[in-house]
């Protein structure tokens, strides 16, 4: 029978009610934060990627470039944050070329929210968008369903509660760049230590008005694998050789075929 089959719909529904849910896409249990300071904005992220209970990548990049001076940190479904970020980065560049002006953070945010709203939350991208543009420094966040928030400091992802605890207790208005970087790094570290989904290192990006954005890849590396106390390599010859057999499994034959003399047999071409 041609067409779509819905034979398994009821079965799946039944299984769901019994606690056997549908398999889910890889999700990055994550801690991401952002914080404004006097004359700029900084965002930060941890570097752990998970696939269920497995740490899939110990040093992945969760800070994405939307434009040279607009960056965003992504939490949620890894593939979605990556792809949606690349798409918007592309459209943002075309837009700024078209408008003959620097891309703006609000433009990036509007593109993101409209794209995510269109997909009604099926794209699992939770982003903190930050950057500097001709109108100043901005810090915003977008949720998968397309809602946006604005604030002096933001945190998102599974470690957002741990990070927010740090932000809420240490944030003060008009911080210096160094203080803001420290605050963000501390907030991420809080996620790294207290959230199972977050771990490894701290990535950080600083965007300052009138300056190029600076990416601090692995700004903090609090989880360097320590040297093993001893080597677990086995010395050559640890295992005895009982028998050795080397055999050819391929016969190589060479045949040379020659055609008369080259001048006679040259290809004939129609006059």
């Amino acid at each position, binding site marked *: 029978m041609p067409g779509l089959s819905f034979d398994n719909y009821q079965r799946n529904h039944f299984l769901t009610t019994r606690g056997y849910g549908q398999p889910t896409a890889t999700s990055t249990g994550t801690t991401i934060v952002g914080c404004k300071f006097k004359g700029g904005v900084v965002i930060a992220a941890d570097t752990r990627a998970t696939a269920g209970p497995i740490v899939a990548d110990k040093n992945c990049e969760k800070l994405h470039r939307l434009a040279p001076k607009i960056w965003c940190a992504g939490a949620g479904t890894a593939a979605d944050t990556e792809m949606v970020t690349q798409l918007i980065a592309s459209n943002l560049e075309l837009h700024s070329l078209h408008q003959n002006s620097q891309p703006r953070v609000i433009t990036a945010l509007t593109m993101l929210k*409209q794209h995510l709203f269109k997909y009604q939350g099926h794209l699992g991208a939770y982003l903190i968008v930050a950057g500097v543009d001709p109108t100043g420094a901005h810090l915003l966040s977008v*949720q998968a*369903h397309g809602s946006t*928030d604005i604030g002096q400091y933001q945190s998102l992802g599974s470690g957002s509660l741990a990070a927010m605890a740090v932000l809420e207790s240490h944030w003060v208005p008009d911080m210096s760049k160094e203080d803001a970087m420290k605050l963000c790094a501390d907030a991420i570290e809080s996620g790294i230590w207290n959230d199972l989904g977050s771990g490894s290192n701290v990535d950080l990006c600083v965007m300052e008005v009138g300056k190029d954005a600076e990416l601090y890849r692995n700004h903090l590396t609090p989880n360097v694998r320590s040297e093993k106390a001893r080597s677990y390599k086995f010395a050559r010859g640890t295992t005895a050789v009982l028998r050795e057999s080397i055999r050819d499994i391929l016969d190589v034959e060479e045949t040379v075929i020659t055609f008369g003399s080259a001048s006679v047999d040259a290809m004939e071409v129609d006059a």
Partner: protein
Amino acid sequence: MNGISVDINHLKKGEVNLGTSIMAVKFKDGVILGADSRTTTGSYIANRVTDKLTQIHDTIYCCRSGSAADTQAVADMVKYYLQMYASQLPFDEKPQTKIAANIFQEICYNNKDNLTAGIICAGYDKVNKGTVYSIPIGGSIHQQEYAIAGSGSTFVYGWCNENFKPEMEREECVDFIKTALAEAIKWDGSSGGVIRMVVLTEAGVERLVYYPEDYQK
């Protein structure tokens, strides 16, 4: 196991919710909108300083309740439609509040199956002065002297009904809203944070913020 049942009333998984207390009140010189500032995702407060009072035109605002994504998207659409409308008016004219409210109604009704949006649209225009429209979840529209909405509003229906007076003075109206929202916040777990207000009059727009220590008696 037999048949398909779909619960259309609950929010989509992980959706950001505006469990809210919002209101708008007509007074002598125009209209005042008020809202709490809490945004929740389940039991987590995603934003404690949210601005639920959204500008649609110079002196037309709306209060949003329901899904944050849905109401933001609808407000953006209405803003766009109203710009289109305003651009066709003579240069010295501004759109009337009822135009904005009716666009809200049209969008909320036509997409009622996909939206969780309860909106109060209020504004000041030269012809009608202050006006308040309520557009609750099904997409109907009601012009009112004052409107309250959101999960917290249920706690203050009676109080507002007893204490509302038409043609209040500005300070009186601010106190009315502050008291109502303070009660709504006190009794409703999904409402909280600061109380934001927007005063819309002939003179233009004025924003007010009241912190918990101000409004908690």
